[in-house]
């Protein structure tokens, strides 16, 4: 039986994503979550998780039709923890340049862009396991607490996060000769380009770390 923590963790359902495995990963880490598309529930949560697979514009439209854009922005202002995953992380930025140019949540300044030309043999989407590296900021007590450098996590994306201010780049990965941002951090707001719920034991540890942050 999973232990019930007293904090309310909400996974935001905005229509175009795989929620089941994320919810199961949290359950496996002994944390109850609710899946919601209701702005009021989001507002009262102690932490939110913004998951996502799919296209940037479709993602923003999903948030818009559910009236979630303002409530997530407001949530970000409260400094309560946010975990954005893949598309969910990308949506935290100002602009998404995927099949056109579209506004994002603007919680972190910056844009979502395509990979530049990569070394031969390196295809896009970037599918697969890749290591994460520190950018100098210590990982203790953070989302990446006790995670060894170069640990493998699972990526599947065609576009990358480019925060304007480099201090928000918390971890990077290298693909095809190019170093890109794999984790963004602005205080308690984290954006993982990879999928912790798909990254085996390492991923489950990252989720446990997020739960610790919520409970702090």
């Amino acid at each position, binding site marked *: 039986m999973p232990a019930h923590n007293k904090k309310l963790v909400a996974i935001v359902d905005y229509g175009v994503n795989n929620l089941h*495995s994320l919810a*199961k990963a949290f359950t496996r880490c002994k944390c109850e979550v609710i899946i919601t598309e209701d702005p009021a529930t989001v507002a009262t949560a102690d932490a939110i998780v913004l998951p996502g697979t799919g296209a940037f514009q479709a993602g923003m439209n999903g948030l818009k039709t559910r009236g979630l854009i303002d409530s997530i922005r407001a949530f970000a202002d409260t400094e309560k923890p946010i975990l954005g995953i893949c598309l969910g992380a990308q949506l935290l930025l100002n602009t998404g340049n995927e099949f056109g140019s579209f506004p994002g949540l603007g919680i972190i300044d910056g844009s979502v862009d395509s990979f530049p030309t990569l070394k031969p043999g390196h295809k896009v989407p970037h599918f697969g396991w890749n290591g994460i590296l520190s950018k100098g900021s210590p990982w203790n007590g953070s989302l990446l607490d006790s995670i060894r450098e170069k640990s493998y996590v699972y990526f599947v994306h065609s576009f990358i996060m480019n925060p304007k201010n480099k201090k928000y780049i918390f971890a990077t990965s290298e693909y095809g000769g190019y170093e890109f941002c794999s984790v963004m951090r602005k205080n308690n707001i984290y954006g993982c380009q990879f999928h912790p719920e*798909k990254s085996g034991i390492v991923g489950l540890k990252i989720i446990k770390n997020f739960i610790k942050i919520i409970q702090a």
Partner: protein
Amino acid sequence: MKNIRIIPRLDIKGPNVVKGIHTEGLRVVGEPIKLAEKYYRDGADEIVYMDIVASLYQRNLDFDLLRSVASEIFIPLTVGGGIRSIHDINNALRAGADKVAINTYALGHPEFLKEAVRTFGAQCIVLSVEAKKINPNSWEAYTDGGREKTGINAVDWIHQAVSQGVGEVFITSIDADGTRKGFDRELAQAVSSVAVPVIIHGGANSPSSFLDILRDCKPDAVAASSIFHYGVATIKQVKKYLAKNNISVRLK
């Protein structure tokens, strides 16, 4: 260096994992949840889960079974079998799939791939191909679990699908499938120029067969079924062997 993914494939029929030879004679080899969990713990990088008879029986895959399999593993899951609509893709994703593979329906309706990519993103949509050699350097695409000819050149079809935006290609050699006599080298060579990641499947018989195909044809990932289901080698053994031979793989 690019990391090679090693992927076990589960062919699902009803409540069982099955395996055939040349996609025929589907023998029960295990239970989906048990095998998926086993391979996850053994270091699989992803799992491919295909309902091998959904198109043949003109039905959908069992989303409840999928859900229970997905809940036990925390690595990517590609799901296929009878996917015929945006609704089916959505159901698969909500049941736990990370990527959805499409074969039979796409061959009859190539524009569906474009629609699927637009709705869910390229990274979600995998083209699954079953290829039978008909002439030197020429393969025909089959549907309905390797039973129906299409008259379509498999490699041309792959290029067409990639232009529709699919994010990945999973290709099975019908000639090699289930035989454990080695991969179809020529097929792997023929698809090495495809612009998106390609997963080669069919014929694995030993850790060294993985090494050979990776060295010679450089696929992005290698999938196998019989060799794992019948306990000929474990995923761990295969990966350790590859790492020893300077192939970059994720080791626990």
